[in-house]
């Protein structure tokens, strides 16, 4: 009886895996029966459309507020600095690749923000506009904001932006697609309280 159950489970599991690969939405809904969420993976790696661009996260910080306005001025910020994590990899990563956690996290956060922008049709004409709450309250946004805040612990405010970097003939062209709000750096980031 155990043997029959094992055979039945494996057979049904394989059948479900095969069906989930089909493009029809009805077939994708089979995933709702996977309690782990990871036993019916899709196997179309880097296809049909391979990854064509990179994300680059840049951030800047303000050391002080404008005394008259009690806010930070655009002109008073530091230079933009790239958030470390998606540097060029080493060949040693072929064996052990610890940097993948940071690299993939940054990429996933940027990808999720970009997806949300597309979902809510957010294409800002002026990147200085405050992003919508759907983005600002998302895990991806909060993670990046928290990260750049922790890197600017001696600042009073930080801001980050996401660039899409496309490559052609050995040259990289970056375009800013998203800019965060300006966030006050918390006391925790200052190492206080």
């Amino acid at each position, binding site marked *: 009886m155990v043997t029959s159950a094992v055979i039945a489970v494996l057979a049904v599991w394989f059948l479900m895996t095969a069906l989930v690969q089909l493009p029809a939405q009805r077939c994708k809904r089979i995933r709702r029966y996977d309690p782990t969420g990871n036993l019916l993976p899709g196997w179309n790696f880097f296809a049909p459309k391979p990854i*064509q*661009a990179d994300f680059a996260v840049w951030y800047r910080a303000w050391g002080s507020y404008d005394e008259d306005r009690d806010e930070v001025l655009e002109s008073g910020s530091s230079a933009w600095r790239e958030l470390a994590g998606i540097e060029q990899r080493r060949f040693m990563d072929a064996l052990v690749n610890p940097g993948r956690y940071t690299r993939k996290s940054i990429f996933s956060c940027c990808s999720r923000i970009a997806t949300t922008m597309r979902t809510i049709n957010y294409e800002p004409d002026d990147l200085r506009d405050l992003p919508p709450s759907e983005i600002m309250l998302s895990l991806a946004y909060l993670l990046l904001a928290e990260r750049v805040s922790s890197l600017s612990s001696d600042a009073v405010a930080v801001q980050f932006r996401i660039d899409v970097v496309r490559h052609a003939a050995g040259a990289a062209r970056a375009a800013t697609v998203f800019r965060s709000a300006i966030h006050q750096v918390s006391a925790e980031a200052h190492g206080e309280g």
Partner: protein
Amino acid sequence: MWLHPHPDQALSLAVQFCAVGRLIGVLELMLVRGELAHSGFLDWTMIGNLSPHTRMRVGSVIRRAFRLIGPRAFAGVVVVNAVVAAALLVYPSSALLIATAVATQLVMIKRHHLTIDGSDQMSLVVLMACLLGRIGADAVSLRAAVSFLAAELTLSYFVAGVSKATSSYWRSGSALTIIAQTRMYGHPLVARVLRTHPALGRAAGRSVLVWESLFLLTLTAPLPVALAVLAAGVAFHVGCAAVMGLNRFVWAFAASYPALLCTNIAIRTGIGVSVADAITIAAAAVGLLALAVGGGARPAIQPGQMAAAARETRA
């Protein structure tokens, strides 16, 4: 044993391969343990801010349970993960160890939901299939688990190949050059070589396409042919590890190679060598014809079309 694995040996090798991959994963996590701390990308107080409501009740239970797992408890999970993986290298047929490995793999996947990739999923699939085979504990169950691994491996490569075969980027041979130029999955030296030798990129890309699409022939092909295809698979995954940083894919996918050899032997013995050879030749001919005829090479996207592509591929 390696060329003619018994089902029991094939499952044991699958578990051992996965165990190596998991030990590498634990080492990597230890090397970036700073990310587990406050403001790190693996800080659970941040990445744990997920809704507890999921499609399945089990998912909700898991997420709610995670909220009770503090840093110390998670450190314990990592230790268990490493100890179990090491033990599986010595006792790969232990159902209890495999079950624990499945559980810890699931914990890690759920926790590090931003960073998981196909190797994590394949490892989970392989371990779960091996667990089912060991629970059955008889020859039929072992054979069923081995057959499942072979079928899953074949399906994964076939789907990847067909997906590439329908892509203008892959059919035109520009896909590898495009990927190699990115920082995320590329390498500057490889990108430079492919730019200066575009024929090399086209040949490599089309080779991957053909190899993946026709991988299922290994189920019936003569042993030397099957071994050659598997050797190409190892080379492919090692290449992906070196260029793209996908190091754990080597272990996750090669884990099922012994099962595939085992299934190949069983099929060729069951239906007869001449029938198997005939099927292999016919399938290869049909497959190659389909690849040659279907779609035709369309030009890859040109830089002038970048703007449209940017709107289309913001994700």
